[in-house]
């Protein structure tokens, strides 16, 4: 039945349903979406859930830091409630990672469109700078940047933009180069549309399928990055709950109280897995075309 509908829609000249609309067809993507939504919902509900203050210390609980009726997942090395810190930490990651990736996308799309559209020296300048940045091992770039400009949420965003925008620019530039000779772009020129209109209205929307997949992948990478920076001591300054920082803080006690390091590690893995499965499902869907 649905097959009939799709073919009818296609014969009527209407576009196929978008990549995101077809998402439910991929089991992998749905599992990924469920994992991501699990954390998103918890993060959104954090202020209304009956959680302990993530920074309040319960000195009595430090004697027995494991699970208890008061602290379901136990407490961390400083006696702070693990469950609360995990959920509030998820809130931080889920706020910083998309912001950083979106900002990187804004910069990368601008660079890629300009380079692919105008070619010439603009292209050479943008591509050369991108090449230099892309030849850095990513973690090395992050470490040098954050260590020098200081650890904060804003600086993490700045570092992610600097490190990821060139990669996004490269994808957009390639797509722009292939789209610029299409008929609908020529039609836009005939209508005397401006360069900006052609770039943003004609070219950019046609880049979306590969970019949506890349976006999910980058969300995963950026979540890894934020965690890694936290673990390296370059994440959000304490006492903010930060999953990577929580793992780092607990590693010294891992032989005694492994749960303190394990829970945040599992939290990070589930969220990253969610983004990666979502990206994988999207790739599969777009390749099935």
């Amino acid at each position, binding site marked *: 039945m649905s097959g009939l509908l799709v073919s009818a829609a296609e014969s009527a000249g209407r576009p196929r349903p978008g990549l995101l609309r077809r998402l439910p067809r991929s089991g*992998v993507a749905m599992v990924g979406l469920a994992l991501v939504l699990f954390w998103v919902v918890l993060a959104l509900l954090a202020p209304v859930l009956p959680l302990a203050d993530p920074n309040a210390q319960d000195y009595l609980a430090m004697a027995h830091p494991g699970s208890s009726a008061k602290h379901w997942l136990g407490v961390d090395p400083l006696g702070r409630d693990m469950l609360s810190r995990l959920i509030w930490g998820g809130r931080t990651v889920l706020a910083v990672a998309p912001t950083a990736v979106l900002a990187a996308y804004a910069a990368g799309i601008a660079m890629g469109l300009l380079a692919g559209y105008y070619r010439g020296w603009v292209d050479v300048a943008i591509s050369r700078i991108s*090449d*230099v940045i892309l*030849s*850095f*091992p*990513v*973690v*090395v770039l992050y*470490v*040098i*940047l954050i*260590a*020098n*400009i*200081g650890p904060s949420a804003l600086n993490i965003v700045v570092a992610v933009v600097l490190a990821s925008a060139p990669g996004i620019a490269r994808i957009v530039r390639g797509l722009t180069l292939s789209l610029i000779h299409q008929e609908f772009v020529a039609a836009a020129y005939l209508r005397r549309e401006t360069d900006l209109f052609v770039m943003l209205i004609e070219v950019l929307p046609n880049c979306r399928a590969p970019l949506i997949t890349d976006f999910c992948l980058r969300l*995963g990478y950026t979540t*890894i990055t934020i*965690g*890694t920076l936290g*673990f*390296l*001591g*370059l994440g959000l300054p304490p006492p903010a709950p930060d999953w*990577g920082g929580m*793992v*780092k803080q607990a*590693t010294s006690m*891992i*032989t005694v109280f*492994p749960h303190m*390091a*394990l829970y945040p*590690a*599992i939290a*990070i*893995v589930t969220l*990253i*897995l969610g983004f*990666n*499965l979502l990206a*994988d499902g999207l790739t599969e869907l777009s390749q099935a075309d």
Partner: protein
Amino acid sequence: MTRYILRRTLEMLVTLLVASFLVFVVTEFSPGNVARKTLGAFALQEQVDLLYKKLHLNDPLLVRYVRWVGVLTGIEADPLQDPALGLGFKDPRRARYFGNFGYSTLYKAPVNDVLWDRLGNTALLAGLAFAVIVPLSLVLGVLAGMRAGSVLDRALSTLAIVMTSIPEYALGVLLVAVFVVALGVLPGTSPLDPNAGWSIAAQLVLPVSVLALYDAGYVARIVRASMAEVMARPFVRTAVLKGLPRRQVIVNHALRNALIAPFTVILLQINWLIGGVVVTELVFAYPGFGRMLLDASLFGDVALIEAATLVALFVATATQLLSDVGYRVLDPQARR
């Protein structure tokens, strides 16, 4: 081919030069300066100011950068090692020589004394990880891509995604929890000290596993995609239709073509390995290059950061060149 390699080598040198300048600019944002870091937190401000002046640190950024390049190429002597300053910073090699990375304010030793030992330790770690990644990812990828869409493919592909979703520090924690805390069969730290109670080999198992498992998942996915693509090509179908045994089709026909694309990816993986070692070395207290870079960055040791960046970038760009040249050799179509 020779011209191509020469051109690429030249590009590589330009990249290294530009990158080193960028790092120089970024370290400008760091609080404190070389003079303060040399003398320590307890030096008087007058002493710091005097050294600041003697080192000509108020020169424009570009002048200082050119001076740094001069020291590196052996044209100029490192101002920090000037005996007239009375700091006692002395490089036992010579005052001027090619490849002089200057003096580390963090370790209070010439960078060349600090850098290479640690780089050797890291090369051992990364080399062993590489020796695990390549066969592991090839086996996983080829088995999965052999029959795209099969149950085996689904299972192995999911395994590969899970592997790439566990960052090094999380994997480190998980493995330590199992093998160190629960089972007690491996050490949780790897200082590469034979007197640490465990053999060097035992100390290497966990760091190598962490590095290898994370990267192997990614490479396996590339191998799988390439293998699945080749298996769908007409020449493979012809080989199957003419009655060749499946094993022979895969080994003689498909594999050769399927491994060209992953070859480049595997070499580019070295770039990721360098990043991975920073984290892994911190997890296991491994005396390597990555931890040194982290310490240098946190301390603001410009000479050491510059040297470490240059080495990391050199490795990254050199493997990129190697992979591009290899690709041209392997795939005749790319040569034209």
